[in-house]
């Protein structure tokens, strides 16, 4: 019998099967189609050759070593929905879908952290805590429950305990990472002990993996900070305009540590529309212009304020102080429950119940009757408090030109030490023209921000935004970044096409 030699594809397939098991590798075009893009951003699809689902760090190492030998790209993947297409395989290769590495390995109630595997989703972590540690909570982003915890951490996402815990990056207590060359490294106290209690005192090398867009390694374990659950109240603060409303929450943020405020997020009109008589208005009936909205009775600014305290007495005291601040500034503070219960039952879930839960309603916001069709993306930035209103008007202006509604969203974090804001657009993924409109509007707004918002530290993960961002980076620092990348990923195989690869 003549044995036909295997071609490259077949050889890699066999080797992957040997590493993770036959049933955990696929090269079926139908299966790969679902990994070719994220189905939620306007980024163009890519292609990959294999998708593989490891179940252990050793298997991840095996895949990465094979990839190095064969010089084939590796794309780390958890849920594959990133509003900037971060997980799109842009240069082919092996998608490493971590969803089988989905265990919560440890919850340390004394030191307040959870140690999770790289593929844990919000449903997985929150569900585990609800069941086994109901007195603990974790800051959760406004993301669907099937999205990943680790991607949130390493792309510095924004969670609903942001005033205490900062961004996702700030919530990390330690990481275990498989480097692009296959070695395992540890970041934080876990370098020297069994405990994942913090990132110090040895050099904090977690920075080699946070903000690098998955181009420097595959995170296989992460420790995330937890907090004790306490009695909580939610409020909605409404003001006529962003100019009037924003300074109030900025002041509240500065005092947040004395007022028990764990989270402040802000929006333009969706919540106020819901709370006013205009709740039955379809989105396309809401004026595009903020001033027109105000004229038609829809206040254009709302903020969610989440307050924790160990007792109801203390909550009452905080409530009084926050109400006073709001009233003195001409705003309205309404208990969130009141907002919700004033609405017809069939519309309530359009507003999330702000309580450390992933957002199960997220996909409902995006379907066509809301002007969507399954695509949501944004242009956003970290910026100075001073420039938030200007940033708002800028985005509204650009979106209006393209006849698009602007959903404004932001969070103030770490007691006011940083603020992040974004202009969100929804569009229809079945309509190429709509996708093109989104892209054009985003490029234009991005450009405007760079030119006119002096404090902007841009935050968008798609390659076009990275390229523009990097052109602003301080020269010698950019050289250092490149050296680091080359050191960690000498063959340039890890999530290619992103960050430094865009230069």
């Amino acid at each position: 019998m003549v044995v036909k030699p295997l071609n490259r594809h077949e050889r890699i397939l066999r080797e992957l099967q040997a590493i993770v098991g036959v049933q955990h590798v696929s090269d079926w075009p139908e299966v790969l189609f679902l990994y070719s893009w994220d189905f939620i951003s306007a980024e163009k699809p890519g292609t990959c050759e294999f998708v593989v689902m490891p179940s252990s760090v050793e298997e991840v190492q095996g895949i990465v070593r094979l990839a190095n030998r064969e010089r084939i790209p590796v794309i780390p993947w958890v849920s594959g929905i990133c509003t900037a297409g971060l997980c799109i395989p842009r240069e082919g290769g092996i998608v490493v879908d971590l969803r089988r590495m989905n265990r919560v390995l440890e919850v340390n109630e004394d030191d307040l952290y959870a140690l999770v595997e790289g593929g844990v989703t919000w449903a997985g972590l929150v569900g585990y805590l609800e069941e086994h540690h109901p007195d603990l909570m974790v800051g959760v982003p406004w993301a669907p429950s099937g999205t990943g915890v680790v991607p949130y951490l390493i792309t510095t996402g924004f969670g609903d305990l942001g005033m205490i815990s900062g961004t996702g990056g700030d919530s990390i207590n330690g990481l275990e990472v498989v480097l692009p060359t296959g070695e395992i490294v540890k970041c934080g106290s876990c370098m020297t002990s069994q405990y994942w209690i913090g990132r110090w005192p040895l050099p904090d090398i977690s920075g080699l993996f946070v903000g690098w867009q998955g181009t420097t390694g595959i995170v296989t374990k992460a420790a995330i900070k937890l907090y004790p659950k306490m009695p909580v109240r939610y409020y909605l603060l409404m003001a006529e305009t962003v100019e009037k409303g924003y300074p109030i929450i900025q002041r509240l943020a500065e005092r947040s540590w004395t007022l028990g405020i764990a989270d402040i997020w802000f929006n333009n009109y969706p919540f106020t529309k819901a709370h006013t008589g205009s709740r039955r208005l379809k989105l396309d009936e809401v004026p595009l212009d903020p001033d027109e909205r105000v004229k038609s009775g829809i206040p254009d600014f709302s903020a969610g304020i989440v307050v924790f305290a160990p007792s109801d007495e203390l909550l009452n005291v905080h409530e009084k102080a926050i109400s006073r601040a709001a009233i003195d500034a001409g705003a309205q503070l309404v208990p969130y429950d009141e907002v919700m219960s004033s609405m017809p039952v069939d519309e309530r879930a359009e507003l999330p119940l702000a309580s450390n839960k992933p957002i199960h309603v997220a996909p409902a916001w995006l379907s066509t009757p809301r002007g969507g069709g399954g695509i949501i993306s944004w242009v956003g930035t970290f910026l100075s408090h001073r420039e938030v209103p200007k940033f708002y008007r800028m985005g509204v202006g650009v979106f209006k030109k393209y006849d698009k509604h602007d959903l404004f969203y932001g969070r103030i974090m770490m007691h006011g030490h940083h603020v992040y804001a974004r202009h969100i657009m929804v569009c229809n993924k079945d309509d190429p023209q709509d996708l093109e409109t989104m892209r054009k509007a985003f490029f234009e707004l991005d450009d405007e921000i760079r030119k006119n918002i002096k404090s902007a530290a841009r935050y968008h993960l798609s390659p076009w935004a990275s390229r523009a961002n990097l052109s602003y980076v301080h020269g010698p620092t950019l050289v250092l970044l490149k050296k680091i990348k080359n050191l960690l990923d000498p063959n340039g195989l890890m999530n290619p096409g992103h960050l430094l690869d865009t230069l």
Partner: protein
Amino acid sequence: MKSAELYPKEYLAGRGVTKKSTHRGDRMEPLKRFGGLKDYVDVLYYCIKCGQCRSTYQEKGRMRVCPSGELRAFEAYYLGGKNLLLWGLARGEVQWSDRLTHLLYHCTLCGNCAQQCQVPEIHYYALDWLEAAREEAVKRGVGPMPQQERYGKHTLEEYDPYMEPHRDRWSWLRKEAREELPEKADVVYFVGCTASYRQKSIAAATFSVLKKLEVDFTVLWRNGFDEWCCGSPLQRTGQVDRAFKLAQHNVEAIKKAGASLVVTSCAGCYRMIKEDYKERYGLDYGFEALHITSFLAARVKKEELKNEVRKRVTYHDPCHLGRHMGVYEEPRKLLRAIPGLELVEMRRIKENAWCCGAGGVVMSAFPDLARYASDKRIEEAISVGAELISSACPFCWRNLQEATERSWSSLKTLDVIELLWEAMK
């Protein structure tokens, strides 16, 4: 205010999916039910692959819901993946192939995914397009799965999918007892293939209960108006023309018996007769259809249940009875009425009930999926300390029973009606 107060749970009329607070009644264009794939192409892409269809969201613990996806893990096995594949198909980016057929048929059609999805169109109609995709696969000659084609053919010849001869259909009932039954009666007991050929004890118990309650009933054994397979295994695998022939025959047979009501043991038969015959096929019939548990829940009196059944029993909601048709309470009502019986609930129940693995006719084509799902269900039953798992469907019974045996536990499987007969006899 608690979340339950803000989002009161209400089921859609005639179905066991919740009327979501994302209902957006005034803003969602109603879609056609039981349509073809083309009727849904404009909503498939609302899916954002967010993964909410993989776990519950209201209950503590965020429990997993999709047997197909949990077993194989690739996105293509979850609802989100299936939606987007069908969208890709409509755009020409995905082609019909045996692989696509495998993906579309690797699903129990349990509907737990759609229950969790918050996009109203997907929440209400996803099962319709999952079935429409199978119909399309059959039309194009790439579906159903080979095993399903084999039994489909047999069903048109011998009127059962179990590869059994039609003459054995009534082997569960003594000839004399059968002949004693009237030709015409107010109620027809539609036994279904599984209770006729496999779980005969369920048919026997149902027969005994109806007799004991002196119901004016008959079964369709007489030549010319004899019971055939209801067609559910064919309809669920896209073999709609074959299923329709069976439906036409059964409607005629029931009509000939002069019944005003047909009751079924099987959740699948119930859905078929009550919903598919009427609404999908547009068959005009003048009788009502009820699942046997609904019929008996309204009829059985406490004093008729005189024997104690001292057992800790859990109840498994059959998908076709629960999520598909909205019958959750009646089987529980019957169980609660049995003296001595303690009903303990599993964690995934009613609209969130984990499928037993028998649905979507996967047992023949994907036995590993059927085994995986039933093993998980049995683990759950054991974890709540049940001595006995009951259901209201012979098809579920069968798959659960096999898993019970594999579990090496002392857990037993019995149908609700078998338990009821224990208490009545």
